[in-house]
């Protein structure tokens, strides 16, 4: 019973101390901060695996990432289409080798080209069917006598432009073929339409 008033006194003193204003010296904050800085730096040992597996919050800009997502979808679609086309093209020769009976004949016809050039020493046929290559062996005309030069060569089915090259320098349109009004390079061309024989 005697301790009770004494205890109340102590509690009252503590409460008064706590309620009272506290005054710290001006250098207190600086002292605390200096002590904190003096502590060794805290380092977290993070492995690559932990970096990869630790969840993170990512900020996404809708426009940028939307464009990126659209690009990826487009890339995938185009890539799939091209891959299909390439696969189809690559499979053709394999199928032809495996099944020769299925192999289609080359869609071309043999066409005779004739030019009368009495003074010529060399005549070649050039056109889009031989890459405009005047040295192409299959399209060198032979002299048949009397100034007549001719060659019979395969020409793919379809519409083609061509010309004769005389002595590697003079371009001459075929006088027996339809003309092409084609002045891009200032030299004449002829046209031929090769059809599939039925």
């Amino acid at each position, binding site marked *: 019973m005697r301790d009770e008033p004494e205890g109340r006194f102590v509690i009252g003193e503590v409460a008064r101390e706590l309620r009272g204003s506290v005054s710290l010296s001006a250098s207190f904050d600086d002292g605390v901060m200096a002590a904190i800085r003096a502590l060794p730096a805290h380092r977290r040992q993070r492995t690559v695996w932990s970096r990869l597996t630790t969840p993170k919050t990512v900020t996404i*800009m809708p*426009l*940028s*990432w939307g*464009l*990126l997502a*659209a*690009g*990826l979808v*487009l*890339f995938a679609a*185009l*890539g799939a289409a*091209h891959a299909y086309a390439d696969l189809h093209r690559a499979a053709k020769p394999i199928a032809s080798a495996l099944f020769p009976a299925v192999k289609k004949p080359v869609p071309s016809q043999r066409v005779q080209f004739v030019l009368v050039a009495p003074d010529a020493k060399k005549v070649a046929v*050039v056109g*889009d069917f031989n*890459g*405009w*290559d*005047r040295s192409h062996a299959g399209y060198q005309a032979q002299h048949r006598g009397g100034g007549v030069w001719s060659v019979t060569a395969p020409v793919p089915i*379809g*519409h083609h*432009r061509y010309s004769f090259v005389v002595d590697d320098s003079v*371009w001459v349109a075929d006088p*027996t073929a*339809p*003309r*092409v*009004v*084609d*002045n*891009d*390079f*200032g*030299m004449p061309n002829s*046209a031929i*339409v090769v*059809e599939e024989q039925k």
Partner: protein
Amino acid sequence: MKVVAGRVFAIVLFLIAAPVVRAQDPRLAARLDKPTFKAVNAIVDSARLARLPTAPLVDKALEGAAKGSDGPNIVAAVHQLSIRMGSARRQLGPGSSADEIKAAVSALDAGVSVHDLALVRAAAGKRSVTMPLTVLADLIGRQVPVATATNLVIQLTRSGVKDAEFALFQRNVRADVDRGADPTVAATTRARGLVLRTAGTGGKPLH
């Protein structure tokens, strides 16, 4: 943020462009100088994206190289050809073949209007217009007036004249002109004879 947006945009452009870059024709690299090669390839790639046939463009560049033309002239010719091919396909329809487009370009070069191309297309229906347009360009090249030649070819096509008959018609007109006949008279006379024969075998009569 601007830097990030720019990078994203560049990545998207790359992703879009990457799959459509194809192997180039090795003949172009062999016969054209580097700047011309790059310029021609760019035009060819554009045509491919527009779903135009690219072989005629490559052929045009090879033709220019074979004829000794300079680079800028080759690029200009290929570029002009791609434009004319686009015009031709618009008139002939998206299902037109590469040969039809090439023949249509020849007709345009000869002076036929895009409107008349559409008329030839309509007259032919689902048949190919390659031969009619080839003969049309030839007639104009032999000094038959554009309007007359176009009208004759449209009527022949509408009458159901076949490709082999068109070829024979062209040879006959050429032979007549070579013998001294007036080109317009020769073409008109031969066309009438052909239509009469075609009408006799079940074709449509000349209107």
